[in-house]
């Protein structure tokens, strides 16, 4: 008994049952160009992991590797203790990928019934409709669905097998506020039942509201991992917002300004030293109105993180939402 316990691998000492999938030191390169570098990630039952990062950061590559759709060069990936992509794994996994269109000549009802047939223990049909907010729409052809409605149908297809592991790639794209909140509630319900959820999104409030763990990828590397409070705590930047007839380039030249954004008549800048910035701002542009200073959110945390790690904090960026 004693001898047996000494040879047990370390991972079995803890509550291993809650790890649904794990990625261990995974490397992947496309034609010599690194797409993932030494990525480590544990996905736990009853948790939402949000994978964030700019386009090309490696989010899709990581998900495709977890789905077994892509081979990797080095490292280990296990899903339900098996290699990813096997039929037994797929039967416990739900997947929502970005799709331009669904076959147009099938009804919502038919799409769902077809996908239910793939699973040995499918979710109850009515329950699928409830979760996806598709009640009363069963007989509509997918041709006639709006972008947000298509997303809801894709979500329905991803959950109809009662998955223990659910992948959602930008699930709320094109959804209106109400549909998005319905989706979030469904995600929370599934999570409460022990489903492990992997989410990618460009919409940071989504990650902030849902994720237990946020993974920030940049150029194939995990820059930071933690919950959203930990991310926000790492930001010293403040937001300075005001009304001004002037244009952005002039504000970019102010001391300690990291970025400037124009949104309608308001200008919003991020500063890593609010005192310096405000002093210069008020002396050079005394005519500004409606000035406010607030702490930064997740979005600012990412911007700052990006600049810190790459070491190019001088490289200020300007963007214009109303261009």
């Amino acid at each position: 008994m004693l001898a047996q316990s000494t040879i047990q691998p370390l991972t079995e000492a803890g509550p291993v049952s809650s790890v649904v999938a794990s990625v261990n030191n995974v490397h992947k390169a496309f034609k010599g160009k690194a797409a993932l570098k030494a990525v480590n990630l544990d996905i736990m039952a009853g948790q939402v992991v949000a994978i964030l990062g700019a386009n090309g950061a490696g989010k899709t590559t990581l998900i495709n590797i977890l789905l077994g759709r892509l081979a990797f060069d080095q490292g280990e990936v296990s899903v339900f203790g098996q290699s990813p992509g096997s039929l037994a794994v797929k039967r416990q996994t739900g997947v929502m990928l970005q799709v331009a269109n669904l076959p147009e000549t099938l009804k919502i009802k038919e799409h769902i019934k077809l996908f239910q047939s793939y699973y040995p223990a499918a979710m109850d049909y009515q329950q699928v409709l409830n979760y996806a907010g598709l009640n009363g729409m069963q007989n509509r052809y997918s041709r006639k669905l709006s972008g947000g409605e298509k997303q809801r149908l894709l979500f329905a297809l991803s959950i109809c097998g009662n998955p223990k592991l659910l992948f959602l790639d930008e699930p709320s794209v094109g959804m209106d506020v109400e549909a998005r909140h319905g989706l979030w509630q469904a995600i929370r319900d599934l999570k409460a039942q022990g489903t492990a959820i992997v989410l990618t999104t460009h919409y940071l409030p989504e990650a902030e509201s849902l994720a237990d763990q946020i993974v920030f990828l940049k150029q194939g590397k995990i820059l930071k991992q933690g919950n959203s409070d930990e991310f926000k705590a790492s930001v010293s930047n403040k937001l300075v917002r005001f009304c001004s007839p002037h244009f952005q380039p002039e504000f970019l030249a102010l001391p300690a300004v990291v970025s400037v954004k124009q949104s309608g008549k308001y200008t919003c800048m991020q500063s890593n030293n609010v005192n310096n910035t405000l002093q210069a701002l008020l002396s050079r542009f005394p005519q500004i109105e409606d000035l406010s200073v607030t702490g930064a959110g997740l979005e600012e945390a990412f911007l700052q993180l990006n600049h810190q790690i790459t070491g190019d904090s001088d490289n200020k960026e300007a963007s214009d939402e109303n261009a």
Partner: protein
Amino acid sequence: MKTLNLADTFKQVSSHRLNIGQLLKIYRVEAYYEWLKTVRNPSFSLPAILFPVVFYIFFGVLLNHGNAQAASYLLCTYGVFGVMGPALFSFGAGLAIERGQGWLDIKQASPMPAGAQIFARLWLAMSFSVLIVLSLSLVAVSLAGVSLSLLQWLSLIVIWVLGGIPFCLLGLSLGLVLKAQSAPAVINLVYLPLAFMSGLWMPITILPSFLQDFAQFLPPYHLAQLALKVVELDQGQALWQHVIVLLVYTFLFALLSLMAHRRRHD
């Protein structure tokens, strides 16, 4: 502790096996919805049936002035033309479009067995083939004065429907390679010249001799010759020659499809 974990894992995996009944059900349901999806798409189902039938009425009935032999000849060749359509378009264009939309990725990430999708499209192509050759036969009997024995009819239907398989595989490899926007056009560029040069529209003997020689390399020519053998209007080559050429092409197209499939996952 360790044994318990192993037992748990085993239980988890085995509870996610399907029995043979459930597996057959997936194939059946997939084929049913593939059929439903396609029949409701008039831009596929109408030309698939109308093209060969209208062509046959035109060349085999109206321009033919009651020559029963010519009508039998053209029935055989337009039958081949007919079954090539759904084979190339369902597998080729249909698949290319769904691939382009990203829909195929969703299907492949789901636990649908890959065979179910192939089976469903094969079933669809064959069902359409049956509809097409039945419509052609109806026109042949009622308008063109074709009269064949029951055995001849049955042989023809078997040849037509099974003969669609190599074209399904050709469609499959095209569907895995072509871009969604250009797939229908490219497939027409394969389909129509192939049909013409194999003597499916007008008898091969009318074509210039270099085209007749070239037709020996084309699979539709050999399928048409098999059908023509049933009504004793073929070019007189041995049965096994046609069968072997068709089998070689079947193998070749299957290999191409496999290579195209592998290429997607590199």
